Each structure stands twice: as structure tokens, then as C-alpha cells.
């Protein structure tokens, strides 16, 4: 048992026992779902189904139904792809990087953040797949000879690196998440009374025992997976940025892209975690486990990564002038003052100015303000990708090819639909899965709980 300095704020509020933790986490799963859950689920499902409808229409008609044109061949789809992948970076960062740094506050948020990651990467993966036009030959991205002749996929292409990066990231995240879930499923299995749920959770729990040897292996596997997932997190968004950085389009062709994209991804991911958790803790009565201190820690991460992103924007702007390349300089002047100035302004305000407000302790500990900023950051990060992608393309080298991008209703429908589908998945997760890593939380109760903080001898007498 690691003891923590008493002056640090407790991570678990209230005088909880081990059993209380089990109760608090399992009750929302065992009780009937509140009416609000059905309402939210219904709304998300309708939006998600509308999105699926749009996708089917797209597949049946062709990519022409998007607002793309000859100059702007990449717009909403890839913006949404990068946006969702970015959001999908917080979960594994929280569970892997913070595990390596022994940050105990991660235990309250890692489970739901990882779930968010997985669902966000699902949504991200959808976009390149539907962009292929012929979804059913999507498996051609695998290293099989083209047309089953002898021409292989191109291993020099960042788009293929993306295939490997995203599929590795998704599958490793799922494994990491599930390995952690097994002991918690066992807890639910051992409490379940209804035969169907008992059966379901015993299948999911894989017969977990809680033996000393199994815990020994569990801890090592978690540690090694964290060690593997940490460079993975950084590599995935670096590779996503290579999609742009290895091209020769002014505005894309920059070496700053990988670190800048990774920081942006963590930034947007944490914002989405805040948006989801601030609602979830209230709805599921988990205020004792996810409280102001956790929110403050996440806000500090948002502030730091937001500052990195801001620095990157300004560096990019400066270098475009300093490089002396006219095309590069024009790309940036056009971004800031051209027809898409409003998108650039939105990106700058949401991503550079708003996280700086987190320097004020009062603001970063205010839940309402945090919720507001998290939405602002989500919007800002969407605009960042839109600005990078569309403004770099719409003014071609040939002025006769200059054009604008206007999203079609299908563009918007597919995007909104993925948000709906994401919430369908997340609501199902919140309903049937333990949303806190309850067994991990128990292991920090004696060192970081309020009872210990108030009287270090508390657990000696109990």
C-alpha cells in the first residue's frame, strides 16, 4: 500500500469501505435504467440511424454526393476522420501514460476514457472506409497482392501506414481495456442474481479468480501494455499527420506536424473526456470518485496541450514567412485573411485563447466552466482540421482552379450520424459495463481516500 502525503486532496471522497465502492459502481448497472437514459439513447439512435441512412445513400450513389470538387478532393470526411482519431487519443493516454507515471487519479477516469477512445476510433475508421466508395473491397488495404495478381499495397505510402497504425491502435486499445475489465466483470458476475445477467457476465468475466498469481500477471500485463501503448499513442497521430506532411501542398508540407498533431489530439481527447464525464458523474452518482480534483488535473492537461497547440500555430505562421517560400506564405495569409478567415478565427479563439483561462484556479475548478470550455475546444479542434485541410487546398497553384468547399447535406448527415452512433455506443457502455475501474479504485482507497487523509490511522482500527 502506497501512502500519500496527507496534504494532497483525497481522490475518493466520503468514508467509503471496499463494499461501498462495489455498490456505488454496480448499482447503476443492476438497477433499472433511468428514464433519461432511454430518452438520450432514443435521440442518439435516431441520429445514428439517420447517419447510417446517409452512408447507405452515399454508397449507393457515389462520393459525388459529398461537397467535394476537382480542387478540394479532401474535406469533411478527412476532417471528421482526424477529429475522431484525435478524440480517441485521450483514453489510451490516460490509461497508459498516466499508469507509467503512477498517477492514481487516472483510475477514476481510465475505464470510460478508454471506452470513449474505442468508440471514437470506430467512428474515425468509418470515414476512410466509406471514402473508398466500394466499401466491400475495403480489405484490399491489407497486404495482399492487388487484384490477387502480384502488385502489392504500397508500403511507402503514409496512407498504408495509417491502415496499420489505426488497426493496431484500435485492437491494442480494445485488449488493454478488456484486460482491465475482466476482474470488474467478475465482481458483477458474483453479485448478479438474475439468471440471464449472471450468465452474460460470467461469459464476459472469463472465469476470473483473483488469485495472487493472476493478480501478479495482471499487473505486469497492464504495465507492459501501457509501455507498448505509450509510443503507440504518439505514433498513431504522427502517422495521421504524415498523410498531410509528406505531401507537397503548401500549408501541409511541414515538419512540425507530428508533435503538433499529437498535442492537438490529446487536447481534444481530454476535452471530450470532460464533456462526457461531467455528465456521467452526475447521472450515475459518482461524484465521490470523479470530483473537482480530477477535473482540475484534466484541465491542467488541457491547458498544457492547448499551449503546445497554440505555440505550433504561431510557429507555423512565422515559419511560412521566414521560409521565403511564396506559396507557403500565401497559404497562411489566405488562411487568416481569405474567405475562410472565420474558420481560422474560430480555431484560434477556441484552441489558443480558451485553454489559457485555465491558469485561473477558480475557473479550472469550476465544473460548469469546464463543461463550457470542453465544448468550445471540441468545436475548435474540428475547425483546426477543417482549416488545415480545406484552406490549403482551395487556392490551387492555378488561379483558374480556385474554388470553395460547401458541405452537402449528406456530408453533414454522415458527420452528425457518427456523433449519434458514438453516443449509442457510449450509452450502452454506461448501462452495462462498470464505468469505473472499481477494483483498481479499491487498491488506492487506503492511501488516497478521505478517511486516510483525515486520520492516517483510520484503517488500522477498522
Amino acid at each position, binding site marked *: *500500500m*502506497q501512502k500519500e502525503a496527507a496534504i494532497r486532496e483525497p481522490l475518493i471522497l466520503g468514508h467509503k*469501505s*471496499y*463494499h461501498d465502492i*462495489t455498490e456505488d459502481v454496480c448499482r447503476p448497472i443492476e438497477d433499472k435504467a433511468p428514464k433519461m437514459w432511454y430518452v438520450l439513447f432514443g435521440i442518439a439512435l435516431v441520429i445514428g440511424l439517420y447517419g447510417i441512412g446517409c452512408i447507405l445513400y452515399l454508397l449507393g450513389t457515389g462520393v459525388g454526393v459529398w461537397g467535394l470538387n476537382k480542387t478540394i478532393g479532401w474535406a469533411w470526411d478527412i476532417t471528421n476522420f482526424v477529429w475522431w482519431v484525435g478524440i480517441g487519443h485521450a483514453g489510451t493516454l490516460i490509461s497508459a501514460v498516466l499508469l507509467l507515471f503512477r498517477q492514481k487519479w487516472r483510475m477514476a477516469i481510465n475505464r470510460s476514457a478508454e471506452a470513449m477512445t474505442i468508440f471514437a476510433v470506430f467512428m474515425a475508421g468509418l470515414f476512410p472506409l466509406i471514402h473508398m466508395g466500394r466499401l466491400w473491397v475495403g480489405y484490399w488495404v491489407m*497486404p495482399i497482392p492487388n487484384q490477387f495478381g502480384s502488385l*502489392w*499495397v*504500397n*508500403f*511507402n505510402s*503514409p496512407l498504408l*501506414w495509417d491502415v*496499420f*497504425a489505426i*488497426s*493496431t491502435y484500435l*485492437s*491494442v486499445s480494445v485488449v*488493454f481495456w478488456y*484486460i482491465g475489465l*475482466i*476482474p470488474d466483470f467478475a*465482481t458483477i458476475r*458474483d*453479485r448478479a442474481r438474475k439468471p440471464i445477467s449472471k450468465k452474460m457476465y*460470467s461469459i464476459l468475466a*472469463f*472465469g*476470473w*479468480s*483473483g*488469485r*495472487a*498469481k*493472476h*493478480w*501478479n*500477471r*495482471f*499487473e*505486469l*500485463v497492464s504495465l*507492459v*501494455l501501457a509501455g*507498448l*501503448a505509450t*509510443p*503507440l499513442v504518439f*505514433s498513431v497521430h504522427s*502517422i495521421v499527420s*504524415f498523410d498531410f506532411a509528406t505531401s507537397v501542398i503548401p500549408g501541409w508540407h511541414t515538419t512540425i506536424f507530428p508533435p503538433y498533431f499529437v498535442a492537438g489530439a490529446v487536447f481534444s481527447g481530454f476535452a471530450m473526456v470532460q464533456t462526457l464525464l461531467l455528465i456521467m458523474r452526475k447521472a450515475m452518482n459518482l461524484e465521490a470518485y470523479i470530483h473537482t480534483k480530477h477535473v482540475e488535473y484534466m484541465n491542467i492537461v488541457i491547458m498544457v496541450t492547448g499551449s503546445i497547440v497554440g505555440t505550433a500555430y504561431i510557429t507555423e505562421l512565422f515559419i511560412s514567412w521566414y521560409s521565403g517560400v511564396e506559396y507557403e506564405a500565401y497559404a497562411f495569409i489566405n488562411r487568416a485573411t481569405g474567405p475562410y478567415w472565420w474558420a481560422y478565427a474560430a480555431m484560434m479563439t477556441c484552441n489558443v485563447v480558451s485553454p489559457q483561462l485555465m491558469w485561473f484556479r477558480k475557473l479550472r475548478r469550476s465544473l460548469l466552466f469546464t463543461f463550457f470550455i470542453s465544448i468550445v475546444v471540441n468545436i475548435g479542434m474540428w475547425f483546426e482540421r477543417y482549416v488545415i485541410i480545406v484552406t490549403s487546398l482551395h487556392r490551387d497553384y492555378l488561379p483558374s482552379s480556385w474554388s470553395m468547399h460547401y458541405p452537402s447535406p449528406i456530408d453533414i448527415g454522415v458527420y452528425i450520424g457518427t456523433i449519434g452512433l458514438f453516443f449509442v455506443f457510449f450509452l450502452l457502455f454506461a448501462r452495462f459495463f462498470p464505468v469505473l475501474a472499481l*477494483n*483498481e479504485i*479499491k*487498491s488506492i482507497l487506503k492511501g488516497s481516500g478521505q478517511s486516510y487523509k483525515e486520520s492516517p490511522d483510520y*484503517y*488500522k482500527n*477498522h
Partner: protein
Amino acid sequence: MSDKVIYVMYDDDGVLKDGAKKLVSKGVKIADTFSPFPIHGIDPIIGVKNTRLGIMAFLFGLTGLTLATIGMRFFMIEDWPMNIGGKPSFSYLENILSFVPISFEFTVMCAAHGMAITYLLKNKTLPGMPAQNPDPRTTDDKFVMEIRTAENSIEEKELDKLIKDTGFIEIDKKTI
């Protein structure tokens, strides 16, 4: 005398650990413990050796790296050397930089999945397996110590006396 398994239940991880220390110092062999979360420091007391799954992860990773290298060398250099933008693929070494990302990703993929599968197989935890814990409360807030009389040379009565001093809350004996 038939062989017995004694399950001693505690309601605190600290009490179980102190009890285990006491019993082991008296020469009692503790077969296993069951707990809702890892009890840090119990492994050396009851003689659980550190897992070697880390080595497995390394070996799986190495396999992945090798496969990626062999594969990409065959696809891109030997079988069909693509000429991309006038930069033909002559040898693996000359083009190694563009093979780094996939080599890395594939290494991680093999290491992670290989280790996870080995972990599940070694634990005998697979979908639909029956629960292995002796009491359902051990996944909630109770801690159980398993002692097998067959592994101990101490008389059962003597054992009972020793266990009594450890502050347990329940005891359960099963004949096997």
C-alpha cells in the same frame, strides 16, 4: 486422514498479509490467496514467483519485427520493386526509413496481442469459463487464504490454532 483445503476469510487485506506473514514464519505453506484487487507485497510472503510474461511480450515483439521486415523486403524489394517518382526500390536498407512506421506498428501489435493471449491461456481465463474463486465475496470486499493440508506437515489441530491468531472472520474446510 483425508486431505483438506482450508479457506480462511478476512475482511481486510492488511490483516490477511500480517496473518500470512505470521503463518509462514511458523512454517505453514499457504497455497494461494484470493482478493478483489492485488495485495501488494503478498507474493514474496506466500512464495509466488514473478511472472515471465514480460519476456514473452519481448519475444512476440521480436517475432513481429522479423515478420514485418521479411514481409516488406519481399513485397517492396524482391517481388515487385515499385518505382515511385523516379525513386526505385533497390535495396531494403536504402528504403528503410519508409518501412519504420509499419515495422513499429506491427511489432507493437504482435507483442500486445501475443502477450494478452498468453496471459489469458496461462490464467485459464477464457470466455465462458466457470468462476474459479472459492467464494463470490472475494471479488467484492473479502480476502481468502487457501491452505492445503497435503502441502503442510503440521498437524491439523496445530494448524487451526495458528490460524485462530490471525484475526479471520470465517473459516471453511473442504475435503478433497
